């Protein structure tokens, strides 16, 4: 393929994915971002660094994660064969650790002694606290007050791991406010502190760097699915909050034009209600958290509150590369509401004995819909980005059960 036709040579030198991405932060952060960019560009070419990263991913995380043919689910559903990329089997239970391992090793090489992170569902916070514990780094995790309440188990896990969890009570008290607060911490502490962003958003180089650490998902999957089925899949499906598990799966397939790509946003109580978290499906381009991308905003440009049953998708922005993939038409973005996600959660649990995270349940739900419209010899590869243990309380509460 001509290099100019490739979807894999973004971002440009300024961190732009077409009109999206970039660096929209106060001057106080520019130097820190340049230092980070320098380190990222250097170490992603450094054989020692990459060998250490690979070894950790293999021996500590448990990679490669398997691909599983959900035969019973596929048969009951009818249509295409559904395969699951099992990121739920990673250490700490989700794809998040692929990135935190990478960024923490980078922090160590840069001589930083303190790690900060933001978290929504708590999965990224747990994955950050985990690697900080292992490397002996001080760790502070910012988490919205609302999320602290609905993800108690993960808060306790982070504290067990030695992290300090700081509850954020400003704004909507969720992920976006935790991110604001982490940025504020970083502005004042850049000398010794590394900020591990958990998704493919934020100012350059974060969207590119997090994608590069998560792309192991797609690289493995591209090989595994061909080994198992003899060809590339017909479609990829992954949930999109900030979009890190999705871009991790999609990126190595972007130039395989015969592979259809679907990102699944959270429709919450329904796109028509306005109570959702689907900026790509129902938002407008704007600037938030250091990058230009699709946002949930009002007509004055204020960021509005999002709604989703899954804390990990409850974010008003989305990674800029997804914004670009949407506009170019290379990927399709769709939305699944709370009820559909819950139904898929139960269905996968009962038919395959796999309890998915509520985030991943959105991808399962759309994968099932899509597969039903396809032929039995076709393949839909769904990213099972995390396991549902953390969601036991949420699901039980909906059913009126107290655990």
């Amino acid at each position, binding site marked *: 393929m001509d290099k100019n036709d490739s979807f894999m040579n973004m971002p440009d030198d*300024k961190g732009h994915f077409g009109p999206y991405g*970039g*660096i*929209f*932060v*106060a*001057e*106080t952060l*520019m*130097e*820190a971002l340049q230092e980070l960019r320098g380190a990222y560009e250097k170490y992603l070419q450094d054989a020692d660094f990459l060998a250490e990263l690979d070894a950790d991913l293999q021996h500590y995380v448990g990679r490669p994660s398997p691909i599983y043919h959900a035969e019973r689910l596929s048969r009951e559903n009818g249509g295409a064969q559904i395969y699951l990329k099992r990121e739920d089997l990673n250490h700490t239970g989700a794809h998040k650790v692929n990135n935190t391992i990478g960024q923490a090793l980078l922090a160590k090489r840069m001589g930083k002694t303190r790690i900060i992170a933001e978290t929504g569902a708590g999965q990224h916070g747990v994955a950050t606290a985990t690697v900080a514990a292992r490397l002996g780094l001080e760790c502070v995790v910012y988490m919205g007050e609302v999320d602290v309440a609905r993800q108690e188990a993960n808060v306790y896990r982070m504290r067990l791991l030695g992290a300090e969890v700081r509850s954020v009570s*400003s*704004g909507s008290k969720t992920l*976006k*406010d935790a991110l*604001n607060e982490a*940025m*504020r911490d970083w*502005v*004042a*502490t*850049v000398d010794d502190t590394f900020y591990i962003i958990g998704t493919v958003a934020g100012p350059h180089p974060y969207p590119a760097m997090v994608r590069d650490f998560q792309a192991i998902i797609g690289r493995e999957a591209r090989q595994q699915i061909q080994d198992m089925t003899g060809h590339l899949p017909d479609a990829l499906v992954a949930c999109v909050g900030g979009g890190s598990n999705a871009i991790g799966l999609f990126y190595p397939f972007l130039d395989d034009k015969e592979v259809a790509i679907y990102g699944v946003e959270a429709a919450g109580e329904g796109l028509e209600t306005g109570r959702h978290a689907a900026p790509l499906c129902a938002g*407008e*381009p*704007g*600037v*938030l*958290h*250091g990058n*230009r991308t699709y*946002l949930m*905003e009002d*007509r*004055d*440009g*204020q*960021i*509005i509150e999002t709604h989703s049953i899954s804390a990990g998708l409850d974010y008003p922005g989305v990674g800029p590369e997804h914004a670009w993939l949407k506009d170019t038409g290379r990927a399709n973005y769709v939305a699944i509401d709370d009820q559909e996600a819950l139904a898929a959660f139960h269905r996968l649990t009962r038919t395959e004995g796999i309890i998915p995270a509520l985030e991943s349940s959105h991808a399962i739900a759309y994968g099932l819909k899509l597969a039903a419209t396809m032929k039995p010899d076709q393949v839909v590869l769904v990213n099972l980005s995390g396991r549902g243990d953390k969601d036991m309380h949420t699901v039980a509460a909906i059913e009126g059960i107290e655990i």
Partner: protein
Amino acid sequence: MSRIAERFAALKADGRAALVPFITAGDPHPNITVGLMHDMVEAGADLIELGVPFSDPMADGPVIQRASERALAHHVSLDDVIGMVKTFRQDDPDTPVILMGYLNPVEVMGYAAFARRAAQAGVDGALTVDVPPEEGHDLIQALRDEGLDAIYLAAPTSHRQRLEMIADAATGFIYYVSLKGVTGSANLVLDDVAKKLAEIRAVTDMPLGVGFGIKDAAMAADMAKIADAVVVGSALVSRVEANASKPDKIGAELKQLLQEMRQAMDDAGRESASPS
């Protein structure tokens, strides 16, 4: 010459530093903002920075974030803020006003529409905190087309190459963020600020304002000896917050602090100007 340049030229001729108060428009209620602007001018303000409320003020500390939240409770929009400046201008044709805020509300309005409406209302410049020079080209152009100044921040971490880029992008004055951290932080070290201002002066002749961490008259006086403008924000906004439930007292509170600062700055100016 722009109103901002004129004002700095006049102050320089007098050997005085500018006192630049910041308040968030619409905090605690949109009805009182214009009155507060006049009060601040009466108390000795030379230029006013008017904060445009934003839901996610990432570079601000908790004091100014809460000011945004109070204003947004009344749905104060960028358009409303421009309207406040228009009303202010009817009675004050001279005091420069700059809008300080974040890009997204401007992005939604459109750069050209924003610049046109702001200029027509009598706004003199804009400081969009989250737009570094690298991303600023189109916005700066739109502002310049309407004769507005694009104010830029410089930080303790900005090295020479960045300072040159900032000096190229900025007009009006450069706002030096005097410490690492968000607005309202502590620990300002005068010698460090003086050293950095000298570095900035090596790349530009533009007036230099200093802000972030200036809490009282003594600090304002110290800064007035080394900078062309002293920006005070969180200290004022804290007083607004403390009196949010009795808004008729806010004007007097702000005037008191500004008068103390003005007096101390002018005394310090006379001391350093007198032969020793």
